[in-house]
């Protein structure tokens, strides 16, 4: 998880770690949640179906 092993003093104005900023980013999550399955599931799946060979006895 975090590479930052040190214990930070707890104050609201502490710098926010990038991992925290990423999970707080609604748009980024939305984008990832749409793009990843669209590419791996829908696009890859349909491409493979389109390339199935015709049966010959």
């Amino acid at each position, binding site marked *: 998880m975090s590479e930052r092993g040190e214990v930070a003093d707890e104050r609201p104005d502490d710098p926010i770690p990038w991992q925290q900023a990423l*999970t707080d980013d*609604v748009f980024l*999550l939305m984008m990832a*949640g749409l793009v*990843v*399955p669209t590419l791996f*599931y*829908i696009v890859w799946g349909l491409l493979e*179906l389109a390339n*199935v060979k015709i049966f010959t006895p």
Partner: protein
Amino acid sequence: MSANPIGWDWRTCKVTGLTVDRSAERLIVFNAVTAVLYLAFGGTLALLIALTRWPKMHLISNAEWFYRLVGAHGAAMLIFWILFFEVAGLLFGGSILLSRRLTAPKMGWLAYVMMLVGSLGVTYTMLSGQATVMFTAYPPLKASALFYGMMLLYAVGALVAVLHFLVNIVTARLQGQVRTLPLFTFALLVAAILALFTLVSGTLAILPAFLWRLGVIDHVDPAAYRLLFWGFGHGAQQVNLAAMIGIWYALASLTMGAKPINEGLSRFAFVLYVLFIQLGSMHHILVDPGLSSWARGLNASYFMYAAVMGSMIHAFTIPASMEVAARERGHTKGLFGWLKSAPWGQPAFAAMIISFVMFGVLGGISGVIMGGIQLNMIAHNTLIVPAHFHMTVVAGTTLAFMGMTYILVPLMVRRDLFLPGWARLQPYLYGLGMLLFGIGMGLAGHYGVPRRHWDITFPSMTQLSGGVYDGANIHWSLALMALGATIAVTAGAMYIVVAAGTVFIGRKNDVPNIGHVEASAVTPTDPNAPVHHPKGFEAPGTMMLATGFLVLFILLYGWSWFELSKVSWIIK
């Protein structure tokens, strides 16, 4: 909380101190009541179907009606009950929990009306025999064009509801009202994101089928439909998963004062869902022609295991956070003293913990095993499949939703919980019923009994059937399934009496009797209070239980491969 807001209809909750937008409250009550009505309808069908599948009883004597009712049961439960309830949850998480008003309540009403009309239309076409095609409606099996049209209307309505939630979250962020969402709302956000992909995939599946039945196109590729349909059909269940886990976290906070032991880890586990869990839908087509083993294996298994890791993280952090909270309150005796101190008589807690255990042990493990590409061969389309998803969606999601309403409904309608004694008993009875049901149905599937089948005794075909399903083991399993269904439907009816009674005839009370709720769940504590870390494990009891769970998982996984090796055919 926010200062007295001006220009909108609001009240302050006397129990939680939250500022409640009355327009959100009305929308929530409409969505939740509609959800519960579908639960009542689907539950009635469930009993009829289960008692038909027990060959001794074979209740519904007309095959056509049996198939109609199986389709309507699937649609009412898997889609309508769950989604209407989830929309209620989204409205709650997107406004009331953040003490802010709905950005666009009209969008919420538009979604509700579209979903209501769509769901009624789908139910009507299924019951009237225009759409005896099951919930899956695989082409070239034909339903009337109206059926597909109504499915689309429902899907677009659900999409509007999800977008409405996202609009609320985004405006809350942009207006600076919230930076990091509460974990519960974050779980709902993840559910909403999963729902977006799901509804896109579903529309891509059903729109061509609609055009095909209108005569605009003359062919729908059945393999492509299966791919896209399951992006929706199973994706929708991942929406349930995220919402249910959010509710587990919420109820752990409300009933035990739990705080996630590592905020980042819990959120990371949800991010794994966002990235990977939808790819798991491919396990529906593991034994289909069309896709390469690569596409099937990589999506359904390898990527999916990343999402499974997410679930196993939650399986640890939720009980661990409860254990830490109880230990901090002084319940430090032994490994499990904290567990003994838990509020077992509080219906919301009981529902949460039973949902958690049954989902994980029965639903989760069975799902991961069946999603393995080779192991799927001995599970596909047998009763193991519905056994799995009844453990996840019914024992898991439905029971978690019920638990949430034991707290939220009285607060929302400001009435006392109706028949609290019934409410205390209900989760246990429901869990017992579903346990027997799941074991019976799972064993029958393990013995090869097909799902969606009116009569496995093949009375007119004995020369061919050879009494394939006449074994006593199969009949005992199905009897157990029917018994479990009867108990669970009874407990489901008790829930509906309690919920409807609370909404309509519960005693008016601004501080309703929802049992003990931990004040720390809704009241901010000192942000500078340091976390006390003991030298050893913080949650040793949970570590013990979780390790036991992992051992059981490994044993069942190994046993499944052994069962596959007993198939007396070489399959290449």
